């Protein structure tokens, strides 16, 4: 990005349309809506309500028990959702990749994504209410899994269906029965898909909001929700701190996933 910015600077007498010119709108957009907000969050985190430099916000966040509980809850819900998505998504993706009509069937799993997630979640809530299900942790996790399952299935399906059949044949040829073929070749060869799926489910779930609020009638509060609340209450400082904490979580988990992916899979296929 710095390159692009530097390129704008030299005064030019003649305006020439080069490939670089086409990147300007994007660079401008990035500056306005990605870089600037991040800077603002960083600045806000060190300011109190009277715009004085302070570290008070950190103290408030890290000493307040309730906010740490919310963070713990978020991570817990994220882990559970990711695990359930993996447990459901892997077999689904595996069988779809084996079927000749698999590509079409995958569409059915992706189809709900075309409906706005708020509408979907509200509809889910209506169904739960109609069925007299008590809203709580169970319904929240259900809503999460329902919303994020496609993000698990898609990368897994892509990876599984790109595994060359000859690897499976080679394993069979060397004496592996079908379960050994799965454990020794298909599973290790699909690690990159698993990593992608986990990243694509875990990171959004820990930062999500609205789903938990709607599907628990406001009983369960996740990190995303509480950030939203802090900003609603005008507590920009604490809200910013929480956003930074969230960002650190996302970056760390992304980093860890990449590490695992690199160690386990020499092919270097990643959907990220």
């Amino acid at each position, binding site marked *: 990005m710095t390159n692009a910015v530097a390129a704008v600077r030299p005064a030019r007498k003649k305006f020439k349309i080069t490939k670089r010119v086409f990147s300007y709108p994007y660079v401008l957009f990035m500056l306005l809506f990605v870089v600037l907000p991040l800077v603002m969050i960083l600045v806000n985190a060190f300011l109190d309500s009277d715009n004085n430099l302070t570290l008070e916000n950190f103290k408030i966040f890290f000493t307040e028990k309730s906010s740490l509980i919310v963070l713990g809850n978020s991570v817990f819900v994220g882990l559970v959702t990711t695990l359930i998505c993996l447990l459901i998504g892997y077999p689904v993706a595996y069988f779809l990749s084996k079927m000749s009509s698999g590509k079409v069937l995958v569409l059915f799993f992706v189809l709900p994504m075309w409906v706005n997630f708020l509408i979907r979640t509200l509809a889910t809530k209506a169904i739960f209410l109609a069925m007299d299900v008590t809203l709580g942790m169970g319904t929240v996790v259900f809503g999460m899994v329902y919303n994020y399952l496609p993000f698990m299935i898609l990368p897994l399906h892509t990876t599984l269906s790109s595994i*060359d059949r000859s690897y499976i044949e*080679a*394993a*069979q040829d060397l*004496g*592996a029965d079908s379960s050994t073929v799965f454990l020794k070749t298909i599973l290790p060869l699909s690690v990159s898909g698993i990593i992608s799926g986990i990243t694509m489910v875990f990171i959004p779930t820990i930062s999500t909001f609205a789903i938990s609020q709607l599907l628990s009638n406001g009983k369960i509060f996740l990190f995303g929700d509480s950030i939203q609340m802090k900003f609603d209450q005008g507590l920009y400082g604490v809200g910013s701190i929480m956003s930074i904490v969230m960002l650190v979580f996302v970056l760390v988990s992304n980093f860890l996933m990449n590490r695992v992916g690199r160690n*386990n899979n*020499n092919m270097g296929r990643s959907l990220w």
Partner: protein
Amino acid sequence: MSENIIELKNLTKTYGAKDAVKNASLNIKRGEFVTLLGPSGCGKTTTLRMIAGFEMPTSGQIIFDGEDITTTPPHLRKVNTVFQRYALFPHLNVFNNIAFGLKLKTIPAGTKTNRKGEEVQLFRKYTKAEIKSKVDAALKMVDLEDYGHRYVSSLSGGQQQRVAIARALVNEPEVLLLDEPLGALDLKMRKDMQLELMNMHKQLGITFVYVTHDQEEALTMSDKIVVMRDGVIQQIATPEKIYDEPANAFVADFIGESTILSGVMLADYKVEFAGAIFECVDKGFKKNEPIDVIIRPEDLKILSPDDKKTIITAEVISSVFKGDHYQVTLMANENEFIAHDTATYETGSTVGLYIKPFDLHIMHKSRVINEIDTEMAAENSVYICGEKFECVCPFEAGTPVKVSVDFDDVIITDDEEDGTIGATVVSSIYKGSYYQCIVRTDDYYDFFVDTDDDWLKGDRVGINIAPEKIIVEKREVNADGEALPSEQAQPVVIDQTVEEAAENGTEGTAVADDKEVQE
């Protein structure tokens, strides 16, 4: 213990409407190096995959060491495969790739008596140390001792090839299947690997079944070559026999360069082609039977036109240096000949040609006329391959008829739309003065066509036939409306290596009386 390690019995594999392999029967002896040879799409790889167990035959049997393994899953078969693109596991290093099979294997470990007093066979897995010593030995065999820890993606094509061979051989299979293993290597490397594979075959003494489309590779390496085309085995014989006595024009054209001409057998030991009469060593043909003559370029001797041995004079069309010989193209009575000679000849000069009687290879024509069993569409119109063709014939609609069309009366059009029916060019063989093409219609009838042009294999073309050139005859039909069984039965291909052995009086079991391959 039977002599044959693998027996294929009437093996057929059908994909949809297409037969990939048709009624293939083949015996592979213990310790033999057998090559399945043919152009792409001839069914050689499918045959190999059926032996490995990756494909189920539609019909037929596979016997391994006297046991029927037709339905045995691949992991229980005592064969190992070297795959075309190696299929080395990318998530494992070289050592673990090779150890993959060993880690899964169980070996007998003595017996014990159970409570009922019965003897029970015990099995155990290989120990780590055993695996290591076996893998190290395998790595040593393929000259990759220090590569055990490397990941396969960091190896060159030739090294991957060696790992693939080591991975298969380390399991000590009774039969090693190789599916075009050298296809991805460059020429120099391929030559080296050919020699190495031959050495391994000699040292290990196990059976190799090798698939290739490279005729030179097949001739160099094999004990026995199986030539296939369109799923049908054309000839099974030793490399020498395949080269010297090809069973038909296809084999002759596929194996090495040769001049293929149409001729007529005048009498025993006397054949006429290219406007001259030649002596030959063949007999037993019908008088004036049309035949194919095959002349290998190195058998065609170029002499001075006045030499008394000269049978036919020819004009030199071109002479091209090929490294260790000149390839001389000659024209005699409008027939093209190709000769290999150590000397060069001036273009346009006249020379004499001589062929030893023994070097003339005479073959029955696989077909002398296109024949189709069909029925009349209307008066003066007949169905051929689903479309109506005009003809000169008074039979009423629905009459079962036999239609015959001469090779040179079939007209191929460049544009599929211009023809009455569409077809695909399957092969094109130069016969000295014209090309003999085989074009396959969409309902799998093969038309033999003589044309002046060389048609590209795989091209779509149209077929037209002039009405007066369609010969229509009434056909006998039995009460059920079914055609009487025609005498065109399945081709009988016999293993000529067995036959040879029988002639020598040493061994051999099956000797069929029909030597020639007839389609």
